[in-house]
């Protein structure tokens, strides 16, 4: 049964040093507020899983939270590289970062296997690719009926999955709509989970067959309005493309990055404070 709590408490209770953590949201509903809170609480040695480690993981990696990254596409979408990710991989700054690299289809199958509590996922994948040469977690098996060779990956089973959703009701049932990515699978695959939401309502009013995660599969629900900024929440606010572009110069050098993190994340108490601090910086710029 979902506990309705604050984001601070949820991260305190459910995310531990050394955990394998998945923050999912495929360009839409990226749980930025939760990522910031993990930085604020200075979690260390995390294995971070995410299909598309964009700004949120650049921030976590640059802030020294992670020792390993499992991913299938790493970039600032439409803008360029993730400089903090590259600095960690190439120069061990601020700490060394191991990587395990996949293709999207492989991670999707591995998440679905995790949600199904199967030990592995199967796909017709990685054909002709060099990825399996560098990733011992991609094996090949034979179909017991046709003999066809198929890729197999261990199921992804994070210690904690964190997502952002549009709505929860007061019992903790969660509704997501629009681009739903791999969020349902990531939640169902995890041992523990946290959902931040745009709003908590009396009744979900979910349309038939929409993506509803029932209260009793949810660990903690925290109300964080705007918690997916600068990504978007369909029906609430659009993607802030300007922030994605602004991230490139902020993150390019260690000192500008550190100054930004110190001022806007470590120097604030919560996501509301972060948004306020960002607005002030913009006004006084």
């Amino acid at each position, binding site marked *: 049964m979902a506990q309705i709590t604050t984001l601070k408490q949820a991260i305190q209770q459910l995310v531990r040093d050394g955990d394998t953590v998945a923050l999912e949201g495929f360009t*839409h509903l990226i749980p930025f507020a939760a990522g910031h809170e993990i930085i604020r609480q200075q979690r260390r040695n995390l294995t971070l899983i995410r299909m598309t480690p964009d700004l949120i993981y650049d921030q976590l990696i640059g802030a020294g939270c992670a020792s390993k990254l499992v991913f299938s596409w790493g970039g600032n979408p439409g803008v360029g590289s993730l400089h903090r990710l590259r600095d960690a991989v190439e120069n061990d700054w601020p700490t060394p970062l191991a990587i395990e690299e996949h293709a999207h289809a492989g991670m999707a199958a591995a998440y679905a296997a995790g949600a199904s509590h199967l030990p592995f996922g199967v796909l017709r994948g990685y*054909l002709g690719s*060099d990825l399996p040469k560098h990733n011992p977690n991609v094996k090949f098996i034979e179909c017991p009926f046709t003999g066809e060779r198929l890729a197999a990956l261990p199921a992804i089973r994070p210690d904690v999955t964190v997502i952002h959703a549009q709505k929860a009701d007061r019992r903790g049932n969660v509704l997501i709509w629009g681009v739903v*990515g791999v969020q349902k699978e990531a939640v169902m695959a995890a041992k523990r989970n946290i959902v931040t939401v745009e709003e908590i309502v009396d009744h979900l009013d979910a349309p038939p067959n929409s*993506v509803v995660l029932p209260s009793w599969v949810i660990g903690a629900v925290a109300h964080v309005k705007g918690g997916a900024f600068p990504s978007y929440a369909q029906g609430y606010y659009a993607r802030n493309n300007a922030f994605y572009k602004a991230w490139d110069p902020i993150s390019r050098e260690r000192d500008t990055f550190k100054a930004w993190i110190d001022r806007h994340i470590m120097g604030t108490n919560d996501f509301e404070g972060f948004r306020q601090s960002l*607005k002030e910086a913009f006004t006084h710029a």
Partner: protein
Amino acid sequence: MPETKYTADEMMTVASARMIHNGAVLFVGIGLPSAAANLARLTHAPDTVLIYESGTIGAKPPVLPLSIGDGELSETADAVVSIPEIFAYYLQGGRVDLGFLGAAQIDRFANINTTVIGDYHRPSTRLPGAGGAPEIAASSKEVLITLRHNKRAFVKKLDFVTSGGHMEGGNSRGQLRFPGKGPTAVITDLGILTPDPDTKELTLTSVHPGIAPEKVVENTGWPLKLAANLATTEPPSDNELAVLRDLHARTERAHANGA
């Protein structure tokens, strides 16, 4: 006939768009492929079905998305499904006519690299990685690739094979039992390359207006073969250019929204 001015990127986008037949089901990568796919949709191929790997099926975005899962895609789609479903039921399901990919590097058999330049563990340039590309390249019935033409991109040997094209050439792709038939055209800012029917080696079959075949050869990292009947690409029509420029202008305005 009055000469219309256009850029090399515009020529590349227009030439790419023309490769898309009306009604085709496209699995579209972000960037140039997305621009070309939407140009096709807004000109000669209105019934083209655009699928983005975010799970948006039949997206009709009014502006070009900056990311692969923008609100413009889901709000205009016929259906929005989960990531596991778009990859398993649609792409692996063999329902995609045309995969449309960009690349950082390509070799003579149209294998592509979007992972690293240099050594995998100590790369000189770290690229974003695979994303959906390996399975788009494997499972789409046909594959189009578009990238800018230069010797850093068109290389003799890839530093990393992210997505398989025609592998070692000849029937080597078939022997590996790829479901789709692989790349059928590579569209660049200089011309169009297509695989030789037998050897599968990329051959220059068309140069864009004003581009000397020698220039394409010089910008290719292997001894590029030229087709006997080398064509010249039809320049962008006024309509193609107008629609493309209008799309880019709308996109720029939409993406300028502030913090």
